[in-house]
Every structure is written in structure tokens, then in C-alpha cells.
């Protein structure tokens, strides 16, 4: 399954500034593993040591919230990585 991943602004230092990158995987877990393989270190910023989505991060598949890493990702989907921002 190929998908698009939209990267939160604070994590774009991992993707050489790219806002969108190509992804692959049938679940969110697989998509993040693929992302990590291409951009080492980025998964750690989203997922903690207990395999939970960090509390200042939210992941969406298209417009639907994905609370678990087992969430399905279909061909053509967009995974959105959203991060709490503090700037005012």
C-alpha cells in the first residue's frame, strides 16, 4: 500500500524540510516503520518506548483520528502527523 505522509513542521528537520513524503504499509505501524527506515530518528519523536503515541502528537489517516498503531492504511491514503505547537 502506498500512501502520503504529511510531516508536522517541527519534525521536518528529519525529512530535509519536506512537508510530504511517500509512505508504504497496510497499518500505521508499518507506515511508521517504513518512514523510520528512510528518515532515522523521526519515529522516536512520535512514539514512546511503550509503543504509545506521544501525548503531544496526534496521528490522522485522512481526516480520521488514529489512536492505535494498528489502524489500517489503504492505498492512496494520507497520514497526517500533527504536533502540539507553542508559538504565539
Amino acid at each position, binding site marked *: 500500500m502506498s500512501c502520503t505522509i504529511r510531516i508536522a*513542521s517541527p519534525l521536518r528537520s*528529519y525529512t530535509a524540510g519536506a*512537508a510530504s513524503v511517500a509512505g508504504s504499509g497496510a497499518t500505521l505501524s508499518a507506515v511508521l516503520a517504513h518512514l523510520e527506515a528512510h528518515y532515522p*530518528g523521526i519515529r522516536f519523536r512520535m512514539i514512546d518506548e511503550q509503543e504509545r503515541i506521544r*501525548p*503531544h502528537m496526534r496521528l490522522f489517516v485522512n481526516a480520521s483520528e488514529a489512536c492505535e498503531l494498528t489502524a489500517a492504511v489503504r492505498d492512496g491514503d494520507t497520514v497526517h502527523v*500533527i504536533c502540539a505547537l*507553542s*508559538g*504565539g
Partner: protein
Amino acid sequence: MTLSATERARYHRHIALAEIGAAGQEKLKAARVLIIGAGGLGSPAALYLAAAGCGTLGLLDFDRVDLSNLQRQVLFDSAGVARPKAEAGGERLAALNPEIRINAHTLELKAANVRAALADYDIVIDGTDRLATRYLLNDACVLYGKALVSAAIHRFEGQLMTYVPHQGPCYRCLFPQGRDGIVATCAEAGVLGVLPGVLGTLQATEAIKLITGVGEPLIGRLLTYDALDMRFQEFRVSRRRDCAVCGDAPSITEPRDQDPAPAGDPSGGVRRLSAGDLQELLQTRAPLLVDVREPYEFAAGHLAGARHIPLGELPRRLAEIPKDAAPVFICRSGGRSLAACAMALAAGIASPANLEGGLQAWAREVDPTLAVA
């Protein structure tokens, strides 16, 4: 609250809108809105709400106008540099619209004063630049029943959501927990000047909709804006039943200040060095200095011998730091370096140290010739 002839003339274009009319304008006149943070977001929000005839407008900020604010904080001008923001901003708003009441609050929002600060207002605009204040404000608004219109910005990206107690999720439902330092501030990462103009104006729009009862407020919908791609997107967010403040069994029952190093937080084991402490250390030893700022900041000026590993690259480059090196992490103001210390601790690097106050403190207390971008 009836409108005077002058007010009818001033607000004619609103009154001409069937959705608002004189009745809506009277609601605006009766409205009491508090803007927390007279910064990039607070500036356009305050100007538009004042111009719109919001009857009572509070402007709360503890800071003073800095020259670097003027690139985006359109509430101020060059003559206002060094003046208290609430005071200078209040004068600008009063000049824009003498028909409304402006309350200037030069105050740092804390758990101890948040109840009193919010008491005389119905709607709160969050334009702060710290996560700790965002959580404090969210909790207070849930507990005291205030509507909260919240926005945040970073570089070219912004987020917006409206929270009305018992009508949808709150900020903690969206992001249950966060800590300053996990994301670079605007001072550290930079921000497109016009970006808060877009988001702050949307905050004012949401406030006017809540006051007049027109349209559909952004409750339970997170709006994101990417200025580079010129892309707005919307995401559905639900109330969390396990939310610490608005959930079924809340653990937060009164506003509280965020603990700087709570139990269980890996940053609790970090050595904290003042600029003077580091100066002494450098005279007797040669500790590994790791500068975690962005490349442009490092290029502007850095401590001699410092190794440069931007925070974004640190997770994959931690192996470059020996486990027993006791590194000293450095950034501009001490936030990113504290996050770096936590990462180092989690990776098994013993005794990392944080330069408290960052290179700003170093330039202030030790070496004024150091250029800090």
C-alpha cells in the same frame, strides 16, 4: 445594550449584514473578551475585535515590546519598543476605537491568579507562546466555564480550534500532555511574520461568531494551515472520556502550574548549569559541549569547541556521544537543550547537563561579544 448614533455609523457595515444586524452589534457591545498574550496572534485578534466593537477587551501580557516583535506584532510600532505590551497595546486599541473599554493587564498568568484574571470575561483568546500557559489556560477555561479560542504557530504552520466547555473536546483532549522544550519556540525556529496575522484574524472571527451566534464555530474540529503549500485542512477531534480535566473522572479539579521536572520525567536527572557554572567548569576541564540549535544559529556564533548536533538530528546521532562523556547541552534559551538532556538520559548517557538560560544567559553574564541568533 443599545447603540448610539456614532456607534451605528461606525459599525454600519456589520449592521448591514442580515446575519449580524443591530442586534448582533449590540451583542458585540455587551461582550467581554480577554486576549492572553499580546504577540503575533494577539495583535491582529485584538485589533479586529476592537474595530468590530467588542465592548470590553482585556489585553494580558507580562512582557515588554522588543524590536524583534515588530516583524509580526502589528499592535506595536517602533516608538513602543521597551514599553509594557499590555499598556502600549491598550493605547493603540483605545485610539482605534474609543467607544469600547480596554483593560490592560501587565501580568504573568499563573495558577494563583488565573481565576481572578478570567473572572470578568466570557471568551478567552489564547495567543500565548508557552505550552505550560496553554494547559493552565485550558484547564481554567474548562473549570470556570469560559469559551476558549486557541491558535498556535511554528515557522510556516498554524493550528486553530475553539473549545466551549461541555460542547466538545478541550485542548487536553487534543494533546493530553506537553512540555515546553519539546518543540522549538518562534524565537528559536523562526516564524513567517504574516502567519500569526492569518491565525489571529481567524481567532477574532471565531470570537465574533460565538458572540453573535452566527455560523458554525470550530468546536471539535482542528484546523491546520500550511502557508508554504497554502493548504488548510480540517480534522475531527472527539472529547476523551479519560481527559484529565473534562473527562468522566477528571484528576485536575483546580488550575495548577506545570511542574518543571515532574517525577518520572527523565529531565529530573539532569545537571543544571548556570552560565557562571559552565565558565568555571571550562576553566578546569574540557567537557563535551553539544550545541543543539539550528545551523543558522550555530553559524552566527557558538562556544569554542562545541559540537553541533541540531535537536532534530539528535535521536539518530546520540551514538556520537560517549555514554560516560557527561555532555553539556546548549541552545539559545535552555528549552531545546533540556529536551536534548532527556533524550540523552533515555539513551543511557550518564549525567547530561543543561546550560540554564542558554547562550542568551552566557552572552548576558559571561561574554557579551558572543552573537546569539
